[in-house]
Structures are given as structure tokens and as C-alpha cells.
């Protein structure tokens, strides 16, 4: 077990994009952090604003932005999550946990250098340390010792020479220790534990035990956000569809990687495309089956964008997608039917993407005698109404809705010639509660031998209701 600690000593300063030196950050009228130039004037954290301004009148100050700090750490956690699934967020940094077999990057020393280099690339001033316990790693990193200790090293001994004031203890305890003349970690470790707990409370002893790996550490792991958000800004405005798809592909690849790492899938997402004329084209996708395949997602977007032409050159694309933790698809081994269905859902998603939800319909049957009400056409998925068998004798396949009025010559209804009634009448009388209907239905044949379903209304008018397809 190994812990890598990253401490950002200048975090309150680094969240501000412009930092005119000398620069400081205040919280509740007390200086929290200041840059090197300010330090050269003799400023140090803990001074009041009045004192600081008196010492250095040219000092520019900003109020501490804790939200921005949390966001920055969150970003860093996403980076750390790639190295290990167990990341612990702290107010001024984070801890990454590794097993003895180490990380995908390599042995501890390589890892240390790699992390340090990447943090520098990102532009952070960071202290990194590796130690067998989280508290020890944190202590080393906050002391700025740049150590890499595995459990084979004599880290317990080495720890003793670190300054005591970097240990996470209450201020009264630190003051009391200073009063006792204790300044190194080793000195407090040598004190009898029973006496320590009586004097400072059990917490101090527990902290020391965690530091030495004698007590399990109870840190809550960071859980990555359940929303994928990625915006890709094009460094120059693009016009070609190919380039746009290439950009989307880049986002999708990253997105699928995030989903893989979290065993997640996506069931709905929004794709935004920003144009130079400040309009944003937004496409919302809803999937019948949660997905996480690059091909499927790219296919859906390509189908949807096929008919879209941007109004101006494109400046950015962004994807916002809640991630579903889903096991769908992973159990197809057990039921063959499910496998069958999954391909269908993919097809349905493609239809929805290209043709729109309104063009893909499903039929369901509603027990009502009025023909126009007994068939319900809806979008997918089907309503699943009770489908008990109706005792209908002969019903047409095609419904003419609304019915077409027929001409009547010599009391014989006409539809490309006179109709010959072969079955009927069948009285349909229903719906007194909503839109009453009284009709006499007949099956008729016209001169072309086509069978029609016609009805006569009480006023003697004839209508065509269906074709026996």
C-alpha cells in the first residue's frame, strides 16, 4: 500500500488568473497566502489586512475564492482518477492510493517524476511525496521534502526529523507542544501515549497512530461526477463537415473512456454546436438502450447531423451527458432473447436519430367499438394495453380515418362504381359518454372486386371506413 500526496501550497493564489505582484489573498480580514514578492517585503500568512497594507502599501489583494479552489481540485481529481480509482480530496490537495504492485505508470520513482512533471505542465506549484501511509505522505508533501518512501525503506525513522508544525493537529495542541519545547515529529512520538491522550485528548494519539500505520485510515474516497461535460473549442473556425465530425469523434473517444472507467453508459445526451454568429445548434438525443460504443454514438450523431447545415463557421462543440451506471448488456450471456432485443433497440435509436420520434410508430389496440378509437398509434415504446382477443368477425386491415363520404345514386352507395353489399348490417352503437356513435356497418364489393368496409349513418349518408387489404 502506497499513498501519493499532492499538496498545492499556493492554491488560494493560483485560482486567480491575473496576479499582479506583490499579490495576496485574504479571508475574514486575515492574509491567507501571498506570493514571493510579497514575502520579500516580510509579509507572511496570518497577518491582518491592516498590518499587511502597512508593511507593503503596493500589495494587491483578492478575497479568497473557495468555490474556484474546489473546482480546481476537482479537475485535479479527474486527472488523478486515471492513475488510481481511489482518490481522496483534501482542502489543499489530494491523496492517491496505490497498491504495492504500483500504478500503470511504473515504479514509485517514475510515478513521482511523472506526476510532478504533469502538475508543472498544468502550471501548478505542487509538492509531491510518496509514503506508505496517507498521513505520512501528506506530512512529507506539506513539509516539501520530495520523498519517495516504500515500506521497505526506514521511513518511520526518517519521519522523526520532520517539523512537528506540519502535522494536522489543533492549534491549541501545536501551541502546547511549542510550549513544551517539542519541534520535531520524533519528539512527540517518544512521549508516552497514555500521558499524551490525557493531556491533549485521544485524537492526537490517533493522528500519530495513523501516521505510523498502526491504525487504519478512514478517508472518504472521491467519487467522480455523474455527468460528462466536455467542450472542445476549435482554435480556428471550421466549415467542413469532416472536420466537425473529427472534433466530435475526439470528444466521444474521451467520453467513452470515462464511461469505461466507471462502468457507465449513456441513455441521453445533448450535443451543442456553436457557430461564429453566436448561435448554438442544440441536438438532444434519447437512447432506448444505454450505450457506450464509439461507433454507435458516432453513428447516431452522424445520422442526426446529416441534414443540418451550419449557419456560419463552427467554433466549438460540446457534449453534456449524465452517466448511467448500468449493467445492461453485461448479462446477455444468460438470456438469448435479450441479445435479440438489444440489436432492435439500436435500430430504433438509429431511426429516431434520422427520422425523428414522430415518424417511428407503434400500434396498440384499445377495447372500444368505434374503429377510429380502437387503434392507437403512438411513438415507441408501446403502451402495453391489455391485449385480450376481441371477438371481431371480419375487420379491414386499412382504416380510412377520418371516413370518406360516399356518393349515393338510387340508394346505392358509389365508390368507383356501385357497391354490392355482401355482409351486413352490423350495428355499432356506443360512446354515449363521449361522442355518441350509431352506425350500420357493411362489407361491400365494388366493380373491381375490391372489398370495402362502409357504414351508413342514421341520416342515410354513406361513408367509407376501411379497405380489406
Amino acid at each position, binding site marked *: 500500500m502506497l499513498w501519493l500526496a499532492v499538496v498545492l501550497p499556493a492554491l488560494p493564489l493560483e485560482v486567480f488568473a491575473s496576479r499582479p505582484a506583490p499579490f495576496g489573498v485574504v479571508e475574514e480580514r486575515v492574509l491567507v497566502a501571498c506570493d514571493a514578492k510579497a514575502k520579500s517585503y516580510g509579509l507572511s500568512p496570518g497577518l491582518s489586512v491592516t498590518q499587511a497594507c502597512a508593511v507593503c502599501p503596493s500589495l494587491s489583494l483578492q478575497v479568497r475564492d473557495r468555490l474556484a479552489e474546489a473546482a480546481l481540485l476537482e479537475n485535479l481529481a479527474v486527472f488523478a482518477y486515471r492513475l488510481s480509482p481511489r482518490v481522496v480530496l483534501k482542502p489543499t490537495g489530494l491523496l492517491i492510493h496505490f497498491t504495492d504492485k504500483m500504478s500503470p505508470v511504473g515504479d514509485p520513482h517514475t510515478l513521482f517524476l511523472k506526476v510532478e512533471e504533469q502538475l508543472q505542465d498544468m502550471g501548478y506549484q505542487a509538492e509531491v511525496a510518496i509514503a506508505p501511509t496517507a498521513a505520512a505522505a501528506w506530512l512529507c508533501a506539506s513539509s516539501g521534502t520530495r520523498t519517495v518512501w516504500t515500506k521497505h525503506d526506514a521511513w518511520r525513522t526518517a519521519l522523526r526529523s520532520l517539523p512537528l508544525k506540519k502535522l494536522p493537529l489543533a492549534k491549541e495542541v501545536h501551541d502546547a507542544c511549542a510550549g513544551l519545547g517539542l519541534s520535531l515529529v520524533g519528539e512527540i512520538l517518544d512521549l508516552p501515549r497514555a500521558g499524551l491522550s490525557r493531556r491533549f485528548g485521544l485524537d492526537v494519539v490517533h493522528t500519530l497512530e495513523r501516521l505510523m500505520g498502526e491504525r487504519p485510515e478512514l478517508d472518504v474516497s472521491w467519487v467522480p461526477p455523474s455527468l460528462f461535460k466536455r467542450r472542445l473549442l476549435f482554435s480556428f473556425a471550421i466549415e467542413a463537415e469532416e472536420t466537425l465530425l473529427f472534433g466530435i469523434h475526439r470528444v466521444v473517444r474521451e467520453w467513452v473512456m470515462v464511461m469505461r472507467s466507471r462502468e457507465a453508459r449513456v441513455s441521453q445526451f445533448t450535443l451543442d454546436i456553436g457557430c461564429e454568429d453566436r448561435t448554438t445548434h442544440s441536438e438532444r438525443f434519447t437512447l432506448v438502450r444505454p450505450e457506450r460504443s464509439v461507433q454507435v454514438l458516432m453513428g447516431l450523431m452522424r445520422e442526426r447531423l446529416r441534414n443540418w447545415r451550419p449557419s456560419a463557421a463552427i467554433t466549438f462543440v460540446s457534449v453534456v451527458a449524465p452517466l448511467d451506471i448500468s449493467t445492461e448488456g453485461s448479462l446477455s450471456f444468460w438470456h438469448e432473447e435479450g441479445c*435479440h*432485443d*438489444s*440489436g*432492435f433497440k*439500436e*435500430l*430504433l435509436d*438509429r*431511426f429516431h436519430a*434520422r*427520422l425523428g420520434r*414522430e*415518424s*417511428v*410508430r*407503434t*400500434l*396498440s*389496440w*384499445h377495447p372500444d367499438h368505434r*374503429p377510429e378509437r*380502437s*387503434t*392507437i*398509434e403512438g411513438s*415507441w415504446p*408501446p403502451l*402495453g394495453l391489455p*391485449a385480450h*382477443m*376481441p371477438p*371481431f368477425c371480419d*375487420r*379491414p*386491415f*386499412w*382504416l*380510412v*380515418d377520418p371516413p370518406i363520404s360516399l356518393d349515393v345514386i338510387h340508394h346505392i352507395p358509389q365508390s368507383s362504381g356501385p357497391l354490392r353489399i355482401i355482409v351486413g348490417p352490423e350495428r355499432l352503437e356506443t360512446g354515449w359518454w363521449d361522442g355518441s356513435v350509431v352506425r350500420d356497418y357493411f362489407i361491400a364489393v365494388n366493380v*373491381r*372486386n*375490391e*372489398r*370495402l368496409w362502409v357504414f351508413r349513418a342514421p341520416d342515410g349518408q354513406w361513408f367509407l371506413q*376501411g*379497405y*380489406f*387489404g
Partner: protein
Amino acid sequence: MKSVPVTLERMGVHRGLSCTETVTMSTGFPELDQCLEGGGWPVGVLTELRLGRTGIGEMRLLMPLLASLSRKAYVLWVAPPYKPYAPALVAQRMVLDRLILVYPRTHKEALWAVSQGLLSPSVGAVVSWFSNIQEGEFRALQRRASEGGHWSFCFLPETLAPRPSRLRLALQPIQEGLRIVLSRKAKRPPTPVVIAL
């Protein structure tokens, strides 16, 4: 020196058309089964159905096949001319939940929807209605149909010039039921069949 047809006959040379064994499923009408190669609707063939008007019994011709397929797979209808009447489908034992109706807005979308259906393994049968289709487009659909194991039917108006299909049925309503004229790619005389509906 023997003539080529005789040689082919003697040597048992493999010829694509005659030697491929087509999977078929009974149409539900024994008279029609007898006339069809393999004794039923063939898989992987885009069957061309010609009719003068909609509503002459063309659906009752397909219903036995579609109803039995709907128990195992999905059935796709692309651009049906009217609204299907659910009680009639239920009466024919069609599983309604397995029926997908697609109403494309353009001809291109219709072609796309048909070919997507023909590619999907969860779809059993694709039925499509076209008022017109180019020969090239028909060939493309035909190719798609032969790739997957689907039953596919394409309703076309009578008046359209013949398309290069392997199986064409011209449907005419008569007093006794439906008169079907079969013509296949193989040069055989068209055979009329009458089925009672």
C-alpha cells in the same frame, strides 16, 4: 465437342442461381406454395408485389407469414399507405408490440429505413410501399436483402416498368379471391394462381 449447356449438365458445375438453396416459409396458401420455388416465401429475396390499388387483399396474403414471424422477431413496415387497423391484425394473431411502423418524409429516407431494417438481425421481415423506385435503388435494396436473413416485400404500382427482381407477383382482385401471376428471373412462363381469401 459438346455444347456448353450439356457440359454444365454433365459435370455438375456450380451455378450461383440454380444451386443456392433458399430457405423458405410457407405462405399459408397451399396453392401458392406449390408454385413458389422451395414451397414458400424465400428468405433473402426482395419480393416484388404489383397491385393496381391498395386494399385488394394484399395484406391477407402476407399475414400468415408476418404473424408467425412477429412471435420471434420484429416486423418493419415502411410507408404504409393507410393506418393499419389494430383489431384486424390482432385477429390474425399478429403480436402488435413487434410491429414497427415507419413513416419517412422523403423517398431517400424510405430507402434508408428499408436498408436499415434489412441490416438489423432483430428484424424478421421488412414490408415497404413505394409509388416509384429507380432500378438502381431497387438493385441496392435487393443486394441488402440477400445479405441478411430477412423476408422482404416491396409493394409497387402495376403501371411501373418491371424491376430486376428474382420474384415478382402481380396481384389482381377477382370475385373468388386474389389472382396472382408469378414471374421469376428464370425465364419461365408466368403462372397464374387463384387463392381464396
